[in-house]
C-alpha cells in the first residue's frame, strides 16, 4: 500500500474513532433521581378509618346516662382532677363537629362562623368550663371519624398531635354498640330517620324506593338502618352533604338521614322533599371518651341548666323550629347509669 494511501487510511481511522467516542449523548441524569424518589409514600389517614363497631352488647337502656352533678359548678371551682378541669387548664375545648350540616353544625359561608343546634350545646359547655362561650376549637370530622377521634383524644398527646377531640357534637345517635366504645350525655334531641326524594317523585315512603340508589354517610346509623330494606341500593359517602351534591347531579335517587338533617338539605334545594313517617328513632347525645364519667356528669348538669334557663328552647327556636315546627321540647333524660369504677 502506498504512502498517500496510508495517510488517508490513518486519517480515516482517527476520525472514525472520534465519531464513535461521541456516539452517546450522555446517560440520562434524571433517571437516577426519579428512581430514588419512587419510594412509596405512606398514606397518613389512620384517624379516617372507621373503627368497626363491636357486636351489639346489652347496655340496658341506651338513653340511660350518669346522674348529673347537682348543679354546674362555677368555672373557678371545677373539681380538681376532673376532665373538665384539664380542659380548662388547656385553655380550650376541642370539639368534633360537622361543618356542612345546615341547622346542626355548619360553617356559614358568609360569616365564616361554625354554627347550629349542635354547636350551641358546645357553647353552653364552654361557658360552664371557662365562663366564656367561645373557648372552642372546632375539628371538622366525618360521621365515621366520630368514635376514632374520641378514642384518639383519650390517648396521651392525642388532642395536640393525634387529631383527637374532647367531645363530639355531631348529630350522633346513642345506641348500645356505641356505648361499648364511648360514653354519652343525656339525650339533647330526638330525631327519626326518613328519606328525601325529588319533588316530582311518586314515592310516599322508603318502601317505594326498591331498586333505587339511596345515599347516606359512611359510619352512620342511617346507612346501617337501610339493611332492613335489602332491595334498596345503598350509596355511602364520607360526608352527608356529599349526598346532596350527588342527588342534584342525578347520581342518586334519594337521601336518607335524620329528619332534622334532611330538613337542612331541603332548605338548600327547593326541588327536594322529605317523605313518609320516621322509620327509626334516633336519640342524639353528646359523646365523650370512656373513662371520664365525671365529665359526662358535668355535661348532664349543663343540659339540665339549659332546661331551666331556657337556653335549649332558645336554640331550638333559632335553628330548628322554622323548619321542623314547635317540636316536643327538650327530651326527658334517663339517669341512673352506674358510674364505672376508675
Amino acid at each position, binding site marked *: *500500500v*502506498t504512502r*498517500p*494511501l496510508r495517510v*488517508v*487510511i490513518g*486519517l*480515516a481511522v482517527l*476520525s*472514525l474513532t*472520534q*465519531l*464513535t467516542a*461521541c*456516539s*452517546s*449523548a*450522555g446517560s*440520562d*441524569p*434524571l*433517571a437516577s433521581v426519579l428512581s430514588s*424518589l419512587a419510594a412509596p409514600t*405512606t*398514606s*397518613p*389517614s389512620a*384517624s*379516617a378509618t372507621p373503627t368497626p363497631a363491636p357486636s351489639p352488647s346489652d347496655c340496658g337502656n341506651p338513653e340511660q346516662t350518669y346522674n348529673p352533678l347537682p348543679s354546674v359548678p362555677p368555672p373557678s371551682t371545677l373539681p380538681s382532677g376532673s376532665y373538665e378541669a384539664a380542659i380548662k387548664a388547656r385553655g*380550650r375545648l*376541642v370539639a*368534633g363537629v360537622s*361543618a*356542612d350540616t*345546615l341547622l346542626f353544625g*355548619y*360553617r*356559614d*359561608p*358568609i*360569616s*365564616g362562623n361554625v354554627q347550629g343546634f349542635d354547636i350551641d350545646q358546645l357553647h353552653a359547655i364552654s361557658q360552664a368550663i371557662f365562663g366564656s362561650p367561645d373557648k372552642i*376549637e*372546632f*375539628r*371538622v*370530622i*366525618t360521621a365515621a*371519624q366520630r368514635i376514632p377521634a374520641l378514642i384518639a383524644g383519650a390517648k396521651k398527646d392525642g388532642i*395536640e398531635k393525634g*387529631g383527637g377531640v374532647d367531645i363530639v357534637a355531631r348529630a350522633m345517635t346513642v345506641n348500645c354498640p356505641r356505648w361499648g366504645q364511648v360514653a354519652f350525655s343525656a339525650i339533647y334531641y330526638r330525631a327519626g330517620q326518613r328519606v328525601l326524594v325529588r319533588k316530582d317523585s311518586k314515592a310516599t315512603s322508603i318502601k317505594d324506593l326498591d331498586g333505587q340508589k339511596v345515599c347516606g354517610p359512611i359510619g352512620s346509623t342511617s346507612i346501617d338502618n337501610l339493611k332492613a330494606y335489602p332491595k334498596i341500593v345503598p350509596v355511602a359517602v364520607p*360526608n352527608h*352533604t*356529599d349526598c*346532596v*351534591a350527588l342527588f*342534584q347531579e342525578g347520581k342518586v335517587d334519594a337521601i336518607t338521614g335524620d329528619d332534622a338533617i334532611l330538613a337542612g*338539605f331541603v332548605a*338548600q*334545594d327547593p326541588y327536594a322533599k322529605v317523605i313518609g313517617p320516621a322509620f327509626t328513632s334516633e336519640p342524639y347525645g353528646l359523646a365523650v371518651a370512656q373513662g371520664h364519667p365525671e365529665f359526662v356528669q358535668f355535661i348532664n348538669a349543663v343540659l339540665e341548666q339549659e332546661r331551666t334557663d331556657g337556653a335549649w328552647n332558645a336554640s331550638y327556636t333559632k335553628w330548628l323550629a322554622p323548619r321542623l315546627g314547635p317540636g316536643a321540647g327538650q327530651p326527658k333524660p334517663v339517669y341512673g347509669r352506674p358510674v364505672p369504677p376508675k
Partner: protein
Amino acid sequence: VTTPTTVPRPTTGPGSFPPRPTLQGPGRALDALRGVFRGSVGQLRLIGTVCVLASLVFGVLGASAFRDRASALSDARADTAQLVRVQTIQTSLVQADAQATNGFLVAGLEPAGQRAIYDQAIASVAALISGAARAQPDDAPALGRVNANLSSYTELIAVARSNNRQGFPVGSAYLRQASDILRAQILPELAQLTEANRLRTSAAFDSSGAAGTWLGIAIGIGLVGLLAGAALLAMRTHRIINVPIAAAVAAVLLVVLVGGLFMSLAQAKARHVRSTSYTATYALARARVLAYDAKSEESLTLIARGSGQANELLSKSDLTQANTWFDVASKAGAGTSATNTQLSQWIEVHKVIRQADDTGHWDTAVATATRSGRHDSNPNFGAFAATSANALNAQAKAANNGLTTWHGPLVGSGWATLLLGLVAAVASWWGVAQRLEEYR
C-alpha cells in the same frame, strides 16, 4: 474460466430444481451481466462499479446520518418544550385550585382579585392544552381527557361558588368533588404525560447518539470501497495514483473532517445541554409543581379544620421532594439560591400557620394563609413563584438555544455529504473509465 451460455446456471441453494426452459429470459440477462465483468476489461468495470456504489452508499447513508442527528436534536428541543408546557399546565391548575380553595377559606364574598387569578389560570391552562395537543399529536388523546375533566372541574367549582354565595354549605361538597377530579384524574394524567415526554426527550438524545455510528459506517463503506478500488486499480494498471479516485477519497475525507467536526461539536453540545439546562429545566419544573401543591395542601389542611393531618403530611413530602429537585437543578448549573431563600421564607410562614392551627387558633391560621401582608403566605409564595418561574424560563431558553445552535450546520453537512457522494461516484467512475479507454 468460461461457461457456455447454454449450460444451466448453477443452483443457488438447497432444494434446487432442474432448470425450466421458460426461465430463459432472466438467465440470459444474468449471463449478459456476467459477460460485462469478464476478462481484464470486466474486472476494471467491476472496480468502477464498486467505487461508484461505495460513493453512493456513503453519500446517502452519510446524509441521512446528518439529517438524523439534526432531527433528533430538534425532537429533543420540541420534547423539552412540551415537557415544560405539560408541567406548566400542572402548576397553573394547582394554582387555580389553591385560589378557589382559598376563596372558600375566606368568609364572605370571594375577593375579586383572587377570582381573577383563578380565571386567568384556567384560561392559560385551556390555551396550553390546545397548544400542547398541536405540538405533540401523540399527547392529544390524554390531553383530550384532561380537557374533558377540566370542564367538569370548572363546572363543579362554579356550582360550589353559587351555593357558597347563597350561604348553602353544600357548596363545600361540590368543592370536594372538584378537588377529587383534579387530584384523582387530571393531575395523575398530567404526571403520566410528563413522564412520557421525559422518555421521549431521553430517546431523542439517545437517537442523536446513534446518528454518529451511522455516519461512521457510511464513511467506512465509502473509504473501504474507494481505497480498495484504488488499490486494485493500482495493481492492475501499474499506476500508483488515479487522480479522480483520489479526488473521490478526498471528498469523503472532507466529510470526515468537516462533517465529523460539526457532528462531534453538535453532540458535545447536546450532551452538555442534557446534563445542564435540560436537566435543570426538568428539575425546576418538577420542583415548582411540588411547591405549588404544598401551597395548595396548606389551604386544604385549613379547610379540613383539624382533620387535615393527611394534607399536612402531603405538603411536607411535597417540599422534601421539591428540595431534591432544586438540588438537582442547582447541580445542573441553575442558580437556585434566590429561589431556595424565598421558598424557605414561605416555609417559615407555613410553619407559623401550622403552629396557629395546631394550637387552636384556626382563625389566625386562616388569616395568615389568605391575607397578603408581608408576613402572610400568599405574597411570600408569590415571590418564590415568580423567581422560580424566571429560573425555569432561563433554563428552558438555554436548552432550546443549545439544541438549535448546530441544527443549520448539520442540515448543511447532510446536503453537502449527499452532493460529495455523487461527486465521488462520478469521479471514481471517470477514473476507471480513463483506464478502460486504454483497452479500446
